[in-house]
């Protein structure tokens, strides 16, 4: 008995932390909620799963689709996609990866029990599948659906050996944690750490690190401190306030890239009379909704000094924007420049719209969701007040904020949108299309903006099979949305990582932090 207690005790005292050139300790800012790759559509889960699992189609660092478990794909008829699967791919348990595993995975995704956010939104367009041969599969959609390959970049393949209804507990304890990815999960402690071990049978490029430990450190300061103290070698979401200091620190290197996350303001369009929190310049009730007037929306956008926000609030970690996507990403509109900051013109537009003395409004925002969100709304409050729109700012915690925002309880409010698909149809369909439960479009149109002309353009663009032609059609739709100030874009965030000196990282637009992207500097 004594020995049983004592032996591990001694072992523990003698144990030294396993530090070697082959080991990496990295810190996530959010905690994965499960090791089951189909349980929860949550960014930390997806980043973690990307180490152990593969998808048919992957995203490159710029979020352009590239081959992964599928070597190629094409439309064989308007409603059928054919994927040629990579031969010789092995699962961690030695099984071959074949078309049957794809069928199994697609069937499993919608059946995960108690999922708080199901990946079925990425598989629901597939109405049936047909295995042509072990390495060819055809997926049939309901009519033409050009985005299927992109949707499948978020569907991780698992082996059919797991049988019917694999439990997500068994993914967490490692029994079911079998993928085709470069790392195998050896231990999962929710909210604390995950241990990964290199899988030598991986089909792709062998990653540098033999062992990877992923720590969860949500506190920004603590994360930076851990890096400076050398406890971790690689951190994500470097707080903007530390970027300048870390940039001059010889022990540390930084990597950054434009993200796919747009930070913008909604204006409440669901009222004909003044929406909540909007009153006349002396607090009197208004009989019209000033936000329905294009000139007012333009004035509010013009009053925002985006360069000042980027420079002062974001400390350079963003690019001012008047559209959804950053340069270099599919769907970026080259000639759509950020709205110039012009107080005089904004005042003139307000006067022209019949508000020479402005009006009063409350600008709402979260204070614990997006990078510097609370500070951004305060800064915009300052700026709007300067054109005569007396602005109160109310920033609150995300949990109360988002449910109120979804019920149109605010008039002007800040949100962010991460464009997971890396192209323009996603924000056009989800954000600015008319809210329509039947089609599932406009699902997060929280400003309830509605423009039938734009709706028509989006619908037409989605019926174009050719990627280039569809991009052109979507760009036309984006122009219409921005011209009509459907929402007020502020900036596109940059993703920033920091690592110990001597390491090189390839930054990704999609915010995923991957051990595979980090190598010793040459």
């Amino acid at each position, binding site marked *: 008995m004594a020995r049983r207690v004592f032996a591990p005790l001694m072992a523990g005292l003698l144990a030294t932390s396993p530090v070697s050139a082959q080991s990496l300790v990295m810190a996530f800012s959010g905690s994965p909620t499960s090791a089951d790759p189909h349980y929860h559509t949550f960014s930390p889960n997806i980043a973690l799963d990307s180490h152990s699992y593969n998808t048919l189609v992957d995203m490159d660092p710029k979020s352009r689709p590239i081959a992964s478990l599928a070597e190629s794909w094409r439309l064989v008829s308007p409603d059928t996609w054919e994927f040629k699967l990579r031969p010789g791919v092995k699962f961690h348990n030695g099984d071959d990866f074949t078309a049957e595993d794809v069928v199994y995975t697609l069937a499993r995704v919608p059946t995960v029990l108690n999922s708080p956010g199901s990946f079925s939104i990425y598989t629901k367009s597939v109405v049936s599948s047909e295995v042509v041969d072990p390495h060819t599969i055809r997926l049939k959609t309901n009519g033409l659906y050009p985005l299927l390959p992109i949707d499948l970049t978020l569907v991780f393949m698992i082996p059919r050996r797991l049988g019917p209804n694999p439990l997500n507990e068994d993914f967490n304890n490692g029994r079911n944690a079998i993928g085709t990815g470069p790392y195998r999960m050896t231990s999962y402690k929710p909210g604390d750490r995950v241990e990964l071990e290199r899988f030598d049978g991986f089909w792709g490029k062998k990653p540098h690190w033999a062992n990877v430990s992923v720590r969860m450190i949500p506190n920004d300061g603590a994360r930076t401190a851990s890096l400076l103290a050398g406890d971790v070698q690689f951190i994500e979401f470097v707080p903007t306030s530390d970027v300048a200091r870390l940039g001059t620190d010889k022990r540390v290197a930084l990597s950054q890239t434009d993200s796919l996350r747009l930070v913008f303001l909604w204006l409440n369009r669901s009222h004909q009379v003044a929406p909540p929190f909007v009153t006349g310049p002396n607090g009197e009730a208004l009989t019209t909704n000033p936000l329905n007037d294009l000139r007012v929306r333009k004035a509010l956008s013009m009053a925002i000094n985006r360069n000042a926000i980027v420079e002062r609030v974001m400390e350079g970690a963003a690019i001012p924007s008047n559209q959804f996507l950053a340069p270099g990403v599919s769907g970026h509109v080259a000639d759509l420049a950020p709205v110039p900051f012009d107080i005089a013109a904004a005042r003139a537009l307000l006067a022209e719209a019949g508000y020479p003395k402005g009006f009063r409004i409350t600008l709402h925002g979260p204070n614990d969701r997006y990078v510097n969100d609370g500070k951004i709304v305060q800064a915009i409050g300052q700026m709007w007040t300067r054109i005569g729109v007396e602005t109160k700012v109310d920033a609150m915690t995300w949990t109360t904020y988002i449910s109120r925002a979804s019920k149109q309880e605010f008039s002007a409010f800040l949100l962010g949108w991460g464009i997971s698909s890396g192209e323009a149809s996603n924000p056009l369909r*989800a954000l600015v299309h008319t809210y329509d439960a039947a089609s599932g479009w406009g699902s997060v149109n929280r400003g309830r903006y509605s423009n039938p002309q734009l709706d028509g353009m989006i619908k037409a663009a989605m019926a174009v099979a050719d990627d280039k032609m569809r991009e052109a059609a979507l760009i036309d739709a984006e122009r219409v949305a921005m011209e009509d100030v459907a929402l007020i874009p502020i900036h596109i965030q940059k993703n920033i990582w920091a690592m110990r000196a001597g390491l090189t990282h390839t930054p990704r637009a999609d915010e995923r932090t991957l051990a595979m992207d980090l190598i010793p500097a040459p």
Partner: protein
Amino acid sequence: MTVWIFRRLIQAVFVMLAMTVIVFVGVNVIGDPVEILISPDADQAERIRAIAALGLDKPLWEQYLRFLWGAVRGDLGRSFVFNEPALQLISQRMPATLELAVTAVLLAVVLGIPLGLLAGLYPHSLFGRLAMAGSILGFSLPSFWVGLMFIMIFAVQLGWLPSTGRGATVTVFGIPWSFLTRDGLAHMAMPAFNLALGNIALVLRLTRSGVRENMPMDYVRFARAKGLSPQRVVFVHVLKNIMIPVVTVLGLQFGSTVAFAVVTESVFAWPGMGKLIIDSINVLDRPVIVAYLMMIVLMFVTINLIVDLLYTVLDPRVRIGGAE
């Protein structure tokens, strides 16, 4: 005595029941968990599916009765976020919090009592004044701020201690403990001391005022008159009398320490129950919030009971109800 314990148990059950109502209704009026957990890309149909999957489509009273029925059978619901039994989730994190809180209380005893004794015996010396001033600082410093300063100084500037997280663990009786490894102790030093700061000040002051109150008392004078050595008088007789309030307060304080670990765990990324509850509040993981509060209530009820029992053991003058 048995009657007394029985009555206390009945009371405890009613307290627990009342708390379930308050807590359950409380967590269910705030926010919308689906809105927070669901993928931003989700459409309206997926939203409805998620609401049903979390059981939120049912009326509140039905949710409560289901919860109560489960609670009777030891099932406090499944976490919305982790899809694990809430109780299991909490008990996984509990050892980390317990070892932190126990260490903090031990630190308070080991440092607080000797310092308090000295300060009480020599109240007007430089040491006595410094100890009192120090204890006021211990109360007055915001604990989160001290924690951050610790990290800045000892981890970032000096590099002596690891900045955050829990160190290597050793499994004893199936539970992973970190205080048995050198790495684990190194990780625990700052958070435990941070958490102990207020307790040290408290114990110091309690001991000091106890000494000051007891020294002029008759029994001390008698003991001295009998020719007992001053050491014996202080360490045996006075200390014994002081221990009663110290034990009571520390017992009660242990619960508060576990609760206050919320702050320390957030600062030091310590993977305990406190961090879990903050994370759960942030994502509105209602079953975990409810289960955590139920556990805390249970813990407090138990602690209060034990303290009352210890009272009778330590102080023969106290006779608990019914014995007279």
